[in-house]
């Protein structure tokens, strides 16, 4: 039996679920197809950092529109998603690094973006008293924060269903073909039909693109995280470093999440990752040096999530270059959680109205096609 919808969304991460919700809010009927369960992959296991800080110029507009949604997330999805805003601080470990940060902030200001703010050693100490004394300053983005990733993705999924979307889990999309203006989506549970398709398949999105004759240079990566046992509260903002890979955050329950981009080995066909403990040891040493308060901590769990990484580190958002009615929303390159709420809204606008005011031209898939200059 073939099932029909206005839009078939492939992938139940934060992006697919957000797009489903925003489409439903616009009165369309989306069916979201997810091969495992919503939030099983990157969207459910990421570090939860909701950060505008240190973003590529091309994705700043999406990041800003997302931030507006994060700040009223409960209104939208009926759950506060554990979102708390204590800012993100990028710590400079040397004067030279701080000089580089200053240039970046000046450039952003010239372009009219004021969310990143340079801070001196005194303000750094005020915001992050636990950080080691050697650090001369940094950059803060004060509206940033963190949320609970799985809860957020589930909240979007739940609200989307309440608003009329259908979510089909445990079903894999295996092929795409076109019949006039209608797309036929072949799956492990039969055929679905819709005039429009969204490819939000995360680290598997290149396979969907390939079905459309649109190969993309997507690299499958697996950033690692580890979490400690509960510690006395000692730090509020999310802290990130530039030179040495580190992101660092204490949750309300006292546990500390340590990440920063060291990679595990991904096996995307079996949903598995193999951790690299030597690299986690590097993170442990960095934390040890920077945060004396952590010397007693124990690591209780480490894991990795399977994520899509594009060569230029920014996502693919917009229309397919080969296939009418198909839209791409993938390749978030290890920082797409914050972008979920806003990107879904922009996607829904693009699908429902044919255009969007949010500038996303820099994120088009054409940038990877060899024909395109």
């Amino acid at each position, binding site marked *: 039996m073939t099932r029909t919808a206005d839009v078939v969304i492939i992938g139940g991460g934060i992006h697919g679920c957000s797009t489903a919700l925003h489409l439903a809010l616009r009165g369309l009927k989306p069916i979201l197809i997810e091969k495992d*369960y919503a*939030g099983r992959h990157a969207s*459910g296991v990421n570090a939860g950092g909701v950060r505008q800080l240190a973003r590529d110029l091309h994705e700043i507009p999406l990041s800003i529109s997302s931030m507006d949604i994060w700040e009223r997330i409960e209104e939208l999805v009926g759950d506060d998603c554990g979102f708390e805003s204590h800012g993100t601080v990028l710590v400079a470990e040397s004067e030279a690094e701080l000089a580089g940060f200053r240039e970046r902030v000046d450039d952003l200001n010239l372009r009219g973006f004021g969310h990143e703010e340079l801070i001196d050693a005194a303000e750094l100490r005020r915001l992050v008293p636990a950080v080691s004394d050697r650090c001369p300053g940094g950059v803060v983005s004060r509206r940033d924060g963190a949320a*609970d990733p*799985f*809860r957020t993705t*589930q909240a979007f999924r739940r609200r989307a269903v309440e608003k009329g979307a259908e979510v089909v889990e445990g079903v894999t999309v295996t092929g795409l073909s076109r019949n006039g203006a209608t797309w036929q989506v072949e799956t492990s549970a039969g055929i679905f039909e819709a005039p429009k398709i969204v490819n939000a398949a995360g680290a598997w999105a290149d396979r969907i693109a390939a079905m459309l004759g649109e190969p993309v240079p997507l690299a499958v990566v697996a950033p690692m995280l580890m979490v*400690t*046992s509960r510690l006395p509260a000692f730090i509020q903002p999310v802290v990130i470093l530039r030179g040495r890979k580190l992101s660092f955050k204490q949750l309300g*329950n006292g546990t500390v999440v340590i990440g920063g981009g060291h990679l595990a080995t991904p096996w995307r066909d079996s949903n*598995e990752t*193999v*951790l690299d*403990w*030597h690299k*986690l*040891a*590097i993170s*442990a*040493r960095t*934390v*040890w040096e920077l945060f004396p308060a*952590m*010397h*007693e*901590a*124990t*690591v*209780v*769990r*480490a*894991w990795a999530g399977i994520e899509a990484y594009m060569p230029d580190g920014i996502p693919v958002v917009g229309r397919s270059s080969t296939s009418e009615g198909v839209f791409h929303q993938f390749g978030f390159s290890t920082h797409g959680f914050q972008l979920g709420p806003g990107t879904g809204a922009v996607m829904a606008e693009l699908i429902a109205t044919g255009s969007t005011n949010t500038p996303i031209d820099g994120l088009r898939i054409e940038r990877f096609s060899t024909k395109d200059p």
Partner: protein
Amino acid sequence: MIAAADLASSYELVIIGGGPAGLAAAALAARAGVSTVLFDENPGVGGQIYRAITSTPVADRAVLGQDYWDGAALADEAKASGALIVNGATVWSLDRQRLVGVSVGGKARMIEADRVIIATGSQERPFPIPGWTLPGVMTAGAAQTALKAQGLVVDGRTVMAGSGPLLWLLAAQTLRAGGTIDAILDTTPRRNWLQAMFHLPDFALSPYFAKGLALLREVRAKVPVHRVDTMEAVGNDRVREVVFSGAGGTRRLPVDLLLLHQGVVPNVNLANAAGVAHVWNDRQLCFVPVLDADFGSSVPGIAVAGDGAGIAGGTAAAERGRIAAIAAVRALKPDAVVPDTQAIRQRLQREEMGRAFLDWLNRPADSFRMPEGDTIACRCEEVTAKQVRDTAKMGCEGPNQMKAFLRCGMGPCQGRLCGLTVTELIAAERKTSPDEVGYYRLRPPVKPITLAELASLPISEAERKAVER
């Protein structure tokens, strides 16, 4: 004492766990010329059954019984075999590439292995009754461990409760050691006999039959035994009373120590984290690894032997260890001389013969596995049965999603004391099978390690080069 620095960066065979399975495997493999290391987190070898076999202060051999002392030969054999035996060594990671993360004396090392035998044994099944987290409530196995390893015997008003051969063994050992037991609360459901009877003929032929009867007689002569259907530990800061009901109505007994036991189940954490496939075993009501005839798992090069492969007892554990070791030797040193597997398999079969009877007889009642209301399911994060049930009703389909909603299984014990309960509760609420629901996906480190330990991992070649550049 062997230190982390004394370890090589790779061994042909790494064995994790120094109970009968690990010891037998180590002895066999090392004697066949395989470079073998055995890690066990306890201060001495022996595992659970032969706990502290080389150091126990219990001098009167009658107290622990001959079955215990049989372990000494295994320990000697392993020691003499040339295998490197490292105690106080906690294995916190194993992956499908057979990289073993181990900590010894506060220092961590990553060790490469051509083959791995997981021999991490069993643990007691979670026994979630109201009040089971109160100080003064312990497992029967804990009391037995204290007796074997430290010569501590129960003191004050003591009640033992539950089901299974180990409970009776501990009771007998306690009495022989001069301890007193106020009562035994037997939770074995009467109707279990119906299923178990079919398997009585096999059991009657197994070595456990005569031993079991003798134990029962020995204990019943000295301790009142009550059949109970419900049980609760009551107290504020510690347990003060145990309240139970059975055919004779509700009763209360004052206690200083309440010892719980509901059989043992495989300790699956390390195998699960390494990616070994598991299935639900409905007779033993637990997950067991999927294994071939040589105890090889779904991950190439990794075997699971002993009670970790499904409960069969200490003697069977040793035979399983030998079979797994022979497979490892054959793969690593095809020319080496190994014992005849046929004879070992026959002995194993004899050992396993009576198992069905014991499993069916001691299958705990639903109410002792799937609690209700405010009874704590997850001890670490203090999540109640009601919370788990309600979340399942709300639509939560599996334990991994449950973690995100309630944090159950996210504390330091990593689900060891709530995993089976949470799976069964979800299955009950969603009217499906535990196999469908599945188990927690476990993440390394399977045992917490300090940041300092992790930071102590030797700097890798690549990392050193990156710094020099």
